[in-house]
């Protein structure tokens, strides 16, 4: 049963060295208040799985948006993502300082590798990446030919924590996403030991129609109240 807890308490759940999936696409759909609190917590050596490295300037004038705050603070030792080109800190830390390890995976493969773990599958067979350097990735487990077409077998991805951002979350943890914010949040909520969901609005159970629930309360362990800064 999902439990509502203060953000300060939720942040303390995450130890140094933890692996954490963060939903969001260039910060859109990320759990912004939680990330902000985590950036002040001093936690370090995180392995982050996210679509991208987010961006510096946010739409409300933030200096660093979404997980870009954690990267800028050097709290991240490894980042698994599909695109990092819009956050210059990633290139500096990975290619100049050598303090950040970056693993790049195709966006569709990344989503499906996370989904596979959450859905109990042993891997993903995808044509994406065939003939490219993805074949050499430690996350590529082999190559198979099925009906004459080549596929790569990509490993499932799991994390200690998933931190997702929803627009409306009811007190049982059911989530409704606004606009294009569902992105990676949906699959990530299925693929971590502990799921923390931040709601811009916390509502009573029943306020989200059952047909509109996209992440199910049974998947969510902790709910924190978000909202825009």
């Amino acid at each position: 049963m999902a439990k509502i807890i203060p953000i300060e308490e939720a942040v303390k759940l995450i130890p140094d060295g933890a692996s954490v999936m963060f939903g969001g696409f260039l910060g859109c759909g990320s759990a912004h208040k939680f990330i902000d609190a985590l950036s002040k917590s001093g936690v370090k050596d995180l392995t982050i799985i996210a679509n991208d490295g987010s961006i510096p300037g946010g739409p409300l004038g933030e200096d660093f948006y979404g997980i870009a705050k954690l990267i800028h603070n050097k709290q991240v030792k490894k980042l698994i993502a599909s695109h990092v080109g819009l956050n210059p800190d990633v290139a500096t830390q990975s290619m100049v300082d050598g303090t950040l390890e970056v693993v790049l995976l195709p966006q569709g493969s990344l989503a499906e590798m996370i989904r596979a773990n959450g859905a109990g599958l042993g891997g993903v067979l995808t044509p994406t990446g065939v003939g490219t350097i993805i074949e050499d990735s430690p996350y590529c487990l082999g190559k198979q030919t099925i009906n004459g077409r080549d596929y790569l077998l990509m490993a499932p991805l799991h994390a200690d924590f998933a931190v997702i951002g929803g627009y409306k979350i009811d007190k049982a943890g059911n989530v409704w996403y606004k606009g294009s914010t569902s992105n990676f949040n949906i699959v990530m909520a299925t693929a971590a030991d502990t799921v923390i969901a931040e709601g811009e609005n916390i509502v009573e159970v029943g306020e989200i129609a059952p047909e509109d629930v996209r992440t199910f309360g049974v998947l969510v362990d902790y709910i924190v109240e978000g909202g825009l800064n």
Partner: protein
Amino acid sequence: MDKSEIKAFIAKRVAKDLKDGDMVNLGIGLPTLVPNFLPEGVHVTLQSENGIIGTGAVTEENKDLIHVIDAGGGAAAVGTGGSFIDSSVSFGLIRGGHVDATILGGLEVDEEGSLSNWIIPGKKMPGMGGAMDLLVGAKNVIVAMEHTAKGAPKILKKCKLPYTAVHCVTKIITEMCVLEVTDKGLVMTEINPEFTVEDVQAVTEATLIISPDLKPM
């Protein structure tokens, strides 16, 4: 032609390749100009891989950067009849062959229809984002780009940079010509009348096959 005229010229030609009812994914930059040039009566559904099918016009009223963006991080909107989807579904549609065309730029394209556009090892490693999936999954892959990089050929016998995907490109459209990728190599089907076949070949590393039915662009 100056830089912006070149981009508009290419985008205008690309637009002619889209058919009414197509679902289309546009890369960043030049490809985003293509919808401005769609022929009359041709309506396409634009997919934004971060989670929109059927994007619409952004207005002051619907602009909401916190909740609705495109894959480049810019303000976006959903059009009437459109929908919001999550990343897994979005890429299922892409890999599953439900996207009729993807239009994107390239650093290098070769005569085997392979494309490199995501990494310059040791220099620039932005990542592939959704490009590898789009190239493999879309029914038509149209590379829309300037013919050369400051005079240096970009259309090669074999890409030198790491591939984004192999044997995937269906057509290359530049300010000089239109090239179709075939089993035999690159066939020039249209040429900008400002140039001769020799002009184009001189700035193209791949050997061009000239269509007997060569038309002006």
